[in-house]
């Protein structure tokens, strides 16, 4: 019952966040001096034709009405125009992109696989590498290994994503010519090629992020190793491997998981820069393109999608946190 209540509460919170995000996005883009109907107007575009296009696309009503139309579309779907040539956008309709003649949701879903492939693969690498190196540094504190790891980590933290990305592409794809230069192969088509095409972005992203995790893990590990319960575990006669690998690590992972949730949420939402550098046609790329062409329906959709992902991932992280930490569990 409490779990249901908790989930319901979190869900309500999520909805409110999404409403606010959508509203603000809507408002900001509404005040932009843009003419979204222009593109559906054709060339030459007379004022009369423009007005027709506006009417068809639903831009001829006041902004708040447009916003409510948008919200309503999520639950009931929308229809643009009338008669046999009307465009139907079935519920949940997150808007219709007239520039590309496609439902916004479809466009996002088309791109999701790419974003998820990049994000999840990189996340696994950086978690393993970052946490592993962090633990190692903490255990070998003060040794050259620790110093080198932390220096590299510092470099990783300080490296702008696009620089690291460019260097990665240049070195691996063009310099050494060991990995493919272009594109994305759907996982359903060929798993090996899929992974092979993603290696560079994975490694570069992992390098940037692993740094933060290595530092975080190291600090947490040093702190945790000073805790009383570690002393207890040692006094029980456990092997050092078990003391560190079980007792310390589980506690170290708690803050790491929280940071991971935020990072993954943002990354999944299509870290714009990452996808731009690696020419990955993911959600982030969609966002950049829609910003450049001021494609309001897509912008609104992607913004909502990003906010949804961040909130959902955070929610999942909270649940997972409960698994890791019984104190956070609902009893």
């Amino acid at each position, binding site marked *: 019952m409490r779990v249901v209540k908790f989930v319901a509460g979190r869900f309500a919170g999520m909805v409110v966040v999404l409403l606010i995000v959508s509203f603000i996005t809507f408002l900001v883009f509404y005040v*932009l*001096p*843009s*003419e*979204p109907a*222009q*593109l*559906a*107007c*054709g*060339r*030459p*575009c*007379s*004022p*009369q*034709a*423009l007005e*027709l*296009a506006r*009417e*068809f696309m639903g831009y001829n009503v006041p902004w708040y009405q447009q916003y409510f139309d948008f919200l309503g579309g999520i639950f009931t779907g929308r229809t*643009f*125009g*009338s*008669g*046999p*040539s*009307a*465009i139907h956008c079935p519920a949940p309709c997150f808007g219709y992109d*007239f*520039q*590309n*003649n*496609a439902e916004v949701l479809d*466009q996002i879903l*088309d*791109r999701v696989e790419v974003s998820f492939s990049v994000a999840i693969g990189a996340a696994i690498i950086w978690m393993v590498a970052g946490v592993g190196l962090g633990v190692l540094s903490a255990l070998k504190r003060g040794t050259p290994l620790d110093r080198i790891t932390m220096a590299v980590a510092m470099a990783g933290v300080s490296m702008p994503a696009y620089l690291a990305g460019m260097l990665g592409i240049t070195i691996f794809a063009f310099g050494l010519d060991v990995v493919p*230069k*272009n*594109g994305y192969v759907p996982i359903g088509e060929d798993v090996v090629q899929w992974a092979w095409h993603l290696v560079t972005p994975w490694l570069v992203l992992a390098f940037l992020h692993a740094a933060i995790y290595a530092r975080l893990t190291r600090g947490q590990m040093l702190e945790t190793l000073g805790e009383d319960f570690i002393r207890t575990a040692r006094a029980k006669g456990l092997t050092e491997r078990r003391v560190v690998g079980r007792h310390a690590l589980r506690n170290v992972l708690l803050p790491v998981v929280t940071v991971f949730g935020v990072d993954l949420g943002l990354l999944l939402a299509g870290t714009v820069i990452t996808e731009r550098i690696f*020419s990955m*046609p993911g959600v982030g790329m969609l966002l950049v*393109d829609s*910003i*450049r*062409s*001021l*494609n309001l329906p897509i912008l609104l959709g992607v913004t909502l999608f990003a906010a949804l992902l961040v909130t959902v991932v955070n929610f999942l992280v909270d649940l997972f946190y409960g698994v890791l930490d019984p104190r956070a569990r609902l009893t």
Partner: protein
Amino acid sequence: MKRRHSLAGIAAVAVLLAACGANDKPAGQSGGGQVKAGGTLYLLSDSPTQQYDPARSSSLVVTGLQFVHRRLTSWKVAPGQDTTIVPDLATDTGKPSDGGKTWTFTLKDGLKYSDGTPIRSADVKWGLERSFAPAFSGGLAYHKDLLSPGLTYKGPFEGGQELSSIETPDDKTIIFKLARPYGDWNWVASTPAFAPVPKGKGAEANYGEKPVASGPYQIEKFERGKEAVLVRNPNWDGKTDETRPAFPDRVVWQFSQQTNVISKRLIDDTGDDKNAFGTSFASPAQLAQIQGNASAKSRLVTSESGALAYLALNTQRGKLADVNVRKAFQYAINKSAYQVASAGNAQLAGDVATTLITPGLAGREQFDLYQTKPEGDPNKTKELLSAAGMPNGLDGLVLVSRAENDWPRKAESIQSSLAAAGIKVTIKPLDEETFTAEVQNKENPDYDLVLTSWQPDIPSANANIQPLFQSTEIGGGGYNVARYNNPDVDRLITEAQATVDPAEAGKKWAELDKKIMADSPVVPLIYTRNSYLHGSAVGNVKIGRFPAYADYRQFGIIQ
């Protein structure tokens, strides 16, 4: 704007404007072996889709749409020659009567759709009627205000009304009764909306993904954002089609490709990429790279000419309302620096422009009313400004440019030139829609100068002059961004438009060119060259004098 990949007109079509100093081979084509029928052609596009709905397309005759759709007329394009109009579905290029107010076309015999049904004149009419439906707007619309009742007609789908200004007395004949005389109607008949759509079909919004084909290819598979596969249309008869050799067996579009990735694949030229053609222009950075690669350099095709890049002066604003001040601007720009900033050097960028009508259009005359060095003459500008009562130059002008691609850099170059001539400007880069809203639609827009470019949709000086300088095109989405209003010019434009005889019309347009330049509403900069890169197995990649786009119809695979 590249998203919709309109390969035509619009002020600033130039996506990645560039050119190539193809000094070692004739401009407009590249070498290569013999092209034979067969093979697969890959088209690499940075756009997520290709519009195959004729009503919504703004595709030129030579590019993507032609694979699937034929129109009433077509263009004959060859490097080094002026582009001429030729029949496509029609037996001739139209018979004008009634002083250019009535145009009659007759369809060829034996024309069939991909489903085997015959193509009738009513289908062409239906296709045009369909383009009036609000759901299918967005394509080239030159026909709309010439066919009464114009935009009050809402298409055939609701209420089933027909367009009375088009008559189809039999299955072969189609007669257009225009609202006013229009000499270029045969050119207009080559725009996408003149492709036939089987009467009664095409009501659905996604008709463009599975249209009924009249051209040499039909769509086998269409996946937006990924790819489209075109295969041969068995009912297309090459004998009725003089402009389409249709060499490849299959044409595959690869959508949503990144431009730099396209360029890298083509430079590498391996596997299927040998059969590939990049549909975007090579950027200056890519050009610099291609210059250093002999193989890639041999596969680069550059146009002779292209879109007119120009600096528009807001003739209705402040000091710029004074024609003497505007004339001072003609000497201020360092067009050499602009060429380098555009593409690295003059050969790559395109020739310095002094006229409004671009090379390759009938009737064009080369002249220069404001002779100076390519580097410009800032002192002369200062003198002229002094003479106009501004010894200290001008300050605080707003220069609007596009935010996309290389425009900001080119705007910076202009800014530098003007600064040297004592004119201080602030750059305001705007993205496409904001540009439209701010510059083309506002009543009193806040800008003094606009850096942009223009490529006509049809190879007629009409399409070069009228949209940019007729007073009716000020505001309301029109392209007269210089806000140039000269009743004399307006009158002459209407006259020239109504002239049916091409030679006579050409003379009138050339006169208009000089007359307008004398008022100095714009500073012509360069005729922007476009460069394409293709794989080594793609042959017959040619660019005519007009348009500055590769002629997709000729492409074939070298076997």
